[in-house]
């Protein structure tokens, strides 16, 4: 894999202050989901502002796709069209008087044609699930909606890497989960994502890789279970381990659980504790809403009477909404389906595009970690009666 963004011994300090970043080196590979985790004042925001050239390092260099960033006007334009930065405070990011005007801001300044601008804007607004909100004024939106507008504004610029500063801070849990699902969806479509957070739970379950930052230095760059298992490291960084991981470690110490792969989510944990299934596990059905119509939808609902329904992805949610079906699971869908499967219940997950494969991937990850087997059946228009 190639590094999309690379920091090479970056040192930076704000005027008259001690060093904010101290000879920082790391690289982010294309297609990864990376979380920068650290306590308040660790230098997370400084690091992110360095990614799009807002701050210029005192020494060291930032490399985009292997080329050092140049800080002249055209170099910065190039960098900023590739690296999209979503600020923590969406009030300062969403500055235009309407949703449309705000999302169109980036493409307009990239001097695209009017057609292309309109297409990108409507695509971006659609992708964040705010179709129909184009004319709304930002002060009539909720915090979560404003965050979506901020993300749409960046999406419309089609960046290679999306950098988000504390994307879920000051959002309620369900909205946070939806924003994280949205980021997953974007990731599925090929965007590399780098976000900063001090929410270890979120970082643990979401990220492929953690960059642990404290006092302007990288303590560790590794997969989440490795970083968060290290108690000493966590203390040093003034963070707590994720509850799930701590619980697992304690249960291993007590000899209740075997020392195997630490559980990534609730389903793995449940499976670990339970040991084996008493009941027959339920089946997870997946449906690609892009390839079906409403007639097939009602056919599915007719055939599978006792089942739970989950919806993943904006297009699928919209599809179900238009068909008047309200899904039970709208966020954390696969995990909830796995939990349902373990108590013998079936779930139909309506999803679309590359996310269909993500269900398979998540389930096989679960199967690997817990040596269970759960059937995933994809429903096509001609297999509905199986």
């Amino acid at each position, binding site marked *: 894999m190639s590094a999309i963004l690379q920091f090479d011994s970056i040192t930076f300090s704000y005027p008259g202050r001690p060093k904010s970043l101290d000879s920082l080196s790391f690289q982010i590979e294309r297609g990864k989901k990376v979380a920068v985790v650290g306590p308040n004042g660790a230098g997370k925001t400084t690091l992110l502002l360095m990614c799009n050239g*807002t701050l210029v390092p005192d020494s060291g260099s930032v490399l985009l796709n292997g080329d050092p960033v140049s800080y002249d006007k055209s170099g910065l334009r190039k960098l*900023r069209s590739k690296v999209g930065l979503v600020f923590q405070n969406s009030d300062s990011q969403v500055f235009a*008087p309407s949703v449309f005007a705000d999302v169109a801001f*980036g493409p307009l300044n990239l001097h695209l044609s009017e057609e292309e601008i309109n297409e990108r804007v409507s695509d971006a607004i659609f992708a964040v699930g705010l179709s129909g909100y184009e004319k709304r*004024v930002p002060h009539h939106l909720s915090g979560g909606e404003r965050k979506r507008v901020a993300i749409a504004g960046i999406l419309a610029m089609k960046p290679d890497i999306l950098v988000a500063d504390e994307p879920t801070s000051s959002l309620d849990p369900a909205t946070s989960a939806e924003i994280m699902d949205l980021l997953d969806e974007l990731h599925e479509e090929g965007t590399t994502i780098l976000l900063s957070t001090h929410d270890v739970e979120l970082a643990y379950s979401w990220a492929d890789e953690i960059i642990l930052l404290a006092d302007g230095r990288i303590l560790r760059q590794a997969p989440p279970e490795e970083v968060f298992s290290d108690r000493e490291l966590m203390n040093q960084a003034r963070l707590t381990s994720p509850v799930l991981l701590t619980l697992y470690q304690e249960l291993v110490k007590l000899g209740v659980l075997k020392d195997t792969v630490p559980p990534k989510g609730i389903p793995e944990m449940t499976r670990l504790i339970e040991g084996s299934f008493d009941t027959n596990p339920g089946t997870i059905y997946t449906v690609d809403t892009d390839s079906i119509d409403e007639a097939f939808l009602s056919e599915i609902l007719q055939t599978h009477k006792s089942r739970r329904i989950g919806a993943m992805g904006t297009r699928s949610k919209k599809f179900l909404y238009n068909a008047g079906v309200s899904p039970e699971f709208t966020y954390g869908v696969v995990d909830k389906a796995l939990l349902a499967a373990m108590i013998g219940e079936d779930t139909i997950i309506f999803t679309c595009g590359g996310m269909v494969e993500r269900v398979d991937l998540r389930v096989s990850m679960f199967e690997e970690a817990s040596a269970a087997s759960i059937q995933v059946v994809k429903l096509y228009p001609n297999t509905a009666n199986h």
Partner: protein
Amino acid sequence: MKKNNQRTIFSEDVLDDVATSSPLRSVPAGLKLILCLAATVIAVASPEIWVPLFVGITMIFASLVLAKVPFRLYLSLLTIPLAFGLSGAVILLFFTGGGETLVSFFSFCVYDIQITTDSLHLSLLVFARTLGGMCSLYFLAVTTPMTSLFAVFQKLHIPQEFIDLTMLIYRYIFVFIGEAIGIHNAQVIRGGYQGWKNGIYAFSMLVSMLFVRTWERGDEIFLSMNSRCYDGCMALPEESSTVQVKSYIAVFSYLGILVLLFAAEMIL
């Protein structure tokens, strides 16, 4: 203390809300702007009270009946300019002269405090003009959200920089009202605004804090604009309006009547 749930002009975005949900929102903003400006100019230019009074009454009618603005809200909106207009009119009534004396009160040094025919006419005229002008301005304000005026500004070839600034200012009015309310609440719960002196002190803190916040927010906006490759372009809000022949006919026949009345006043 007034009841909090009462909607007055002091609640942060009530005027904008009324305009956004106005039944006349879809009428082209340019047309409403022409109506407002033309009616105001005719009302203010009129030498007699009849045209401005006519404009005022018809505009009140249009705002309350056609645009369905709640009566209490409209009244509270109208209170401020009318109070100014009324006090101006009262002063003019006593301190200008000319024509025959109607009522004479007393003499003060060389000034006679009295009401004359001319002073009565002038004060009534000023009051009527205020009413006419304000009512037509309010008609625009309650039917046209700010966002739909930006495109009209551009058509009028107002400099783009000016429009961009207006859009940013418009957006952040609401953000800063929110900030001000936040600071104010934080002060009140810790005993701010108790007593006159304390009140002045607390208010000065609020204003200075708001200034600092504004400054910081300005920095943040600049950062975020640059992060999206700011190059001097800002998109205008998308506005769709339904062009109805009916509304054009209504506006221009109304303006026609005003011009006729105006001409009649000038001749008579």
